[in-house]
Structure formats: C-alpha cells, structure tokens
C-alpha cells in the first residue's frame, strides 16, 4: 500500500511541479485567483477533512480492538465527512461557474481585474491559475469519491463482522489511503487558497 501511495505522491507531484513553475512566473495572477476563492469554505473543508482523518484513525483503532459497532459508526462518520467535503467543494465550484472562472471559451476574469486594481492581471495567465485549480482540486475530489466508495464497501463488511483484531488489513489500508488524500489537501489548501491574503497596500 505504501508503494501505491508513493506512486500517488508522484502523480500529484507532476501537478505540483506545473503549479510551482507557473506560480513563480505569474505570481500576481495566482495571488488574485487565490483571493477570489472562498477562504471560509476552504478552511471549513480543511477542518472537515481533519475530522474525517480522526474518525478514520479511531476506526482503525476500533478494528484493532474488535469493537464492531464503534467501527461501523466511525466509518459512517468518515463517509459523512467525506460527502460534506465534496458538497462544499461543489458549492465552491458552482460559485466559480457563476463567476465565469471555469477555463474555456466562457472564461472571463474581468471581475478580478476590476476588484484588484492594485495587482496587474493578465487574463490568460489567470486562466492558467484556474486550470490548475480545477485540475488539482478535481483530481483530489476524484480521489475523495473513490475514498467514499471504498469506505462504503468497508462499512458494509464491517457491519457484517468480517474484520477482527486478527484481520483488519483492509481497514488499515483504506485508512492509509484516506490519510493520504487528506495530506494532499493539507498541501493544496495553503498552495491554492493562501497564496497572498495579506491586506492590499
């Protein structure tokens, strides 16, 4: 499993590489784009994910100790947190859609140019920011969806009592996966939302 996670690191790594290079070259546009994201939702989502990581960790512990009911409850909680995260992400994306910030033909960042006159914004570079934003959060959300699916499967068999203190490897592996997705978000949050939030001078 750890090997697979290593693979995943490089998978996201390619994106981080693209991000880093463009961020250095087009810092202004990235800063403006980052400002236009909703910090409140972003922070709430981070907290939601951290809570879900806690329930997962406690879930693995419950499995280790063979407490079936607790395990099922914790797994369901995790799924709820995961769905909450996706829901909030959906709200954010919808906002972006209304603001015409989705890259493509209808992309328009004129509002950013208007809102942040202090920053010099090039629209095509702004579009790169949002391309990366959607690519990275999209990929992350895809992993979350897979995670929710995986956990539904685990919950079903946990409820059936398949996992015992002697055999709980699937729970452990699912947990590792979930934590990994969480860690990716831990990095995405400051890199996408917190590029430059200091008061404009």
């Amino acid at each position, binding site marked *: 499993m750890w090997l*697979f996670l290593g693979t995943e690191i490089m998978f996201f790594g*390619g994106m981080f590489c693209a991000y880093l290079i463009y961020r250095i070259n087009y810092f202004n546009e990235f800063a403006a784009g980052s400002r236009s994201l909703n910090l409140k939702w972003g922070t709430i989502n981070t907290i939601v994910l951290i809570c879900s990581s806690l329930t997962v960790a406690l879930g693995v512990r419950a499995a280790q100790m063979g407490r079936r009911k607790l395990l099922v409850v914790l797994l369901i909680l995790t799924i709820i947190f995961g769905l909450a995260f996706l829901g909030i992400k959906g709200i954010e994306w919808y906002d972006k859609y209304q603001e015409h910030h989705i*890259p493509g033909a209808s992309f328009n960042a004129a509002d950013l140019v208007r809102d942040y006159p202090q920053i010099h914004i090039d629209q095509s570079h702004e579009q790169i920011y949002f391309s990366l934003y959607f690519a990275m959060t999209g990929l992350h959300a895809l992993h979350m969806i897979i995670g929710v699916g995986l956990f539904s499967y685990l919950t079903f068999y946990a409820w059936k009592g398949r996992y015992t203190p002697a055999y709980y490897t699937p729970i452990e592996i699912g947990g590792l996966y979930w934590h990994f997705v969480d860690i990716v978000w831990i990095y995405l949050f400051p890199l996408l939302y917190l590029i430059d939030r200091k008061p404009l001078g």
Partner: protein
Amino acid sequence: MATAAITAEREHYLNKDYGIRSWLLTTDHKRIALLYLMSITFFFFIGGFFALLIRLELLTPAGDLVQADTYNKLFTMHGQVMIFFFLIPSIPAVLGNFLVPMMIGAKDLAFPRINLLSWYLYIIAGILMLHCIVTGGVDTGWTFYTPFSTAFSNTKVIEAGLSIFIAGFSSILTGLNFVVTIHRMRAPGMTWSRLPLFIWAHYATSIIQLLGTPVLAVTLVLVVCERAFHLGIFDPVRGGDPLLFQHLFWFYSHPAVYIMILPSMGVVTEIIPCFSRKRIFGYHAVALSSIAIAVFGFLVWAHHMFVAGISLYSALIFSILSYMVAIPSAIKVFNWTATMYKGSITFSTPMLYAFGFIGLFTMGGLTGLFLSALGIDVHVTDTYFVVAHFHYIMVGGAVMGYLGGMHFWWPKISGRMYPEWLGKFAALIVFLGFNLTFFPQFVLGYLGMPRRYWQYPPEFQVLNVLSTAGSTILAVGYVLPMVYFLWSMRYGKIADENPWGAAGLEWKTASPPPTFNFEEPPEVTWEAYNYDQIAAPVEVSLER
C-alpha cells in the same frame, strides 16, 4: 535426467487445469506470464508491421506508398505500440512475472490477484489502442508534443492518451508487486547479497515504474483535459508553456528507457556466467549499478531538450548528469567482459544473444555519449542519428535481451527444448538484419536527414534502401523464433530440470514447474552463481 520419463504424467502448472476459464481467471504468476507473452507478441507484430510499412515508404525519396497523414500515423503508432505495449511489459511482465517468484523461492507473487488485474488493465488499454488504430489513429508522434497534440492535431489524441494512461497503471501494478515480493517473499537463506542479479535489475526497474509512470499519467491527464475542456496549461495561446510538457513527459520517458533496458541487462547477467561456467565478476558492483542507473536515470531527462529552448545553464547541468548515468552502464559491460575472462564459454543460442546485446548496447551507449555532448547533440538531435541510437538501445539492447531470455528459459517455461541450430541461425539473422537496418541510419542522421520525414531529398536514398533491405531480413529473424517455439511445444525434445547446468533456484524445480513452483519450500545455503560447484551438463558440452 531420469525425470524425463516421468515428466509426461507429472502434474505441472500447464496441465493442472484446462479450459479458457482456468486461464482467464488464473492467479498463477506463470500462467499470467504466458497470457502476457501472447498479448505482447501480438502487439509486437502489429508494431513490426507498421515499421515495415514505414521502411517501405522510405524506399524512395518521394512520398508514394502512403499519404503524408498516414505516414505520420504509422510512425506514431509504431512508437506507441512498441514502447507501451511491447517493450515496457516485455521482460518484466513475461520473464519477470515467470521468474521473479521462482528465483527467490516463493510460490507466487505477493499479490496474485493484482497481478491478474494488471494483465486485464493491459488488455483494456490494448483494446482501446486497437480501436484507436482501426478508427483513425493518432498522428502526434509518440511524444505527444504540445501544442500540436492539444490544439492542432485532429486525430484521436484523447483515446490514445487514455489508453497509455491505463497501460501505465498496469505497469505500476507490476512494479508494485515485484517490490513487495522481493522484500517479503524471499526463501529462507535468500539474503540480499544472494539474490540473482536478474532480481536486482527488476527491483531497480520497479522503482522506476512506481515513481516515474505516475508523472506520465498526470501529464497525459493534463493533455487530455486541455483537449477536452480547454484548460490552458501547456498552450502558449492561453499563456502556458509548451516546454513544461516536455519536462514532465521526459521525466518519465527517459527513465522509461531504463525500464526497457534494465531487465534486459538482468537477463544477460544470468546468461553470461552460465555459459562461461564462472561466477559473475563483481557481484556487488553489478547489483549497485542497477540501482544507480535507476536513480541517475531520473536526473537526465532534459538532455532530450537541448535545442528545445531550455536555458543554457540547465543544459549544462543535464549534460554533465547524462554522463553520470553512462558510468554504471559501463561498469556492467566491463564486468560482463571480465566474467568471460578465463571462462569456459559455450556458444549456445542464449549466449549469442547476450553477445549481440553487449555489442549493440555498447554501440547504442557510446552514441548516447555523442548525444549528451552538447555541441554534437545540436546537430544530430531529431535526426536519424537519434532514431538509430534509440533503436540500438531498445531493439539491439532490450529485444536482444528479451529473445536471449526467452531461449534461456524456454525449457523451463514449456518443458521442451527448441531446435538449437535454428536458434543459432535466427540469432545470426537478427544480428545481421539489425545492423543492416540501423547502422545506415547513423550515417543518415549525421548527414542531416531529420526524423519523421515522409519524403526526403534524393541524396539520402542509397542509405535508406540499405536500411529497408535490412529491415526485411530482421523481420525474418523475428518470425523464425516464434515459429520454432510453437513447433517445439509439441515436437521439441523434452527438457529436464536444468538443461544448461545453470545456477539459480528456478533450475532446481521441475520443467515445467508445478503450480506452486516448488514441491517443498526451498532453503538457500549457497551464494549466487556458484558455478564452481555445479557440473556442466553433458549434452551441451558435446555440442560445438
């Protein structure tokens, strides 16, 4: 030798079950290896067919056999099929799958079901690729360079991209399986320094597969997204940088060359001691050089981009690093040569392939040095010199190793011997045909013929004709082994447990091996390549 009579009735992995289901749902690593063998052979001949069409087109300077667009699709799909559907899975997924568990004394890979899954992923990717080929193909070159691939080509880039994406996952799963197997499943007494060097080579390969492939995957995802949803990451019109694509692409695709060549080196490292009747010279040096190649291989990717518009200074860095990766390869060549020194050498078919490998690989490697020399690279990059160079490495190196390995382990896989004289004959044809095909291309490239040209100035014709002639000879050389391997499955002489008198655990079980490889779990008490303790087989020594 007494076992030969019993072999017919003995139960082994091939005759345990019959019927398609027992194959398609198998989790036996040996059967999966054979599934892979059949599928990659299929793709090899498709890719080879494209190659022949390309060579035929280039027989004359004018573009007369096919249209320009068709030609572009031909070389693109030749590249994609050969690289992603033949070379990358070739040795790891066939020989590696078959041998890794046996060599370390395990009864299967660590995750047999994931192994089967990886084959299915490969097949899904393959079907997608075939569908893509049949319904129109791609014309971006196997490199998918942006912005051509994202904004200008009007062929099936998305489908091909997804297909390679899936094939990539198949390759990742194979690598993952190997690493865990090598770490966890070694037989008692099989310490790290007793592992066959074939295993070391596969270990290094798996590292590359695990850490490099995802970068390619994500790059392809971005390309597909850019085409489908108009994200603007590589497209200069939208402010992106096309060079970023090249960076990400080569970060995988240069190490991918080592995915192809390292296992082949592993095969050669098994063959040479066996037919020299000697211990390998410098075991640790060879083992470490595999790992060194895997690590350094990741540090050199931008040497594909010296004229692409990267900065002067990073070109210098990448050039110097490229020389570093040549060192471990040189160490291997020296050690093989030293292993033969004062040995007792038999010119059997596998050994001929091993000789071919060393010769062609050295050729390829040394021309690689020319390419990493900045001044020369500017002239010859993107010409036929590069084409010749990587064919020497990939075909001259990887495929020679693959064929050598197939001959070496065929008795173990099938329980039958192939006809030795035909084998030698085919090896000779392959070697001659290969050199005739690709050596003229070095000259062509040096004279300045750019690659991927559908028509060319007439002064290049003589060399192109030579190359095309060579390719037909080469094709015969490749068809021959397939024919006599198939023949030998029914009519070949029955092989005993260890026909070559080779060291290694895989030779200590019956041929073909039982489903769980060993009747009793083996325990290793000897060092690797203990040829001082194994008697040479009688049959082989009688043969000249």
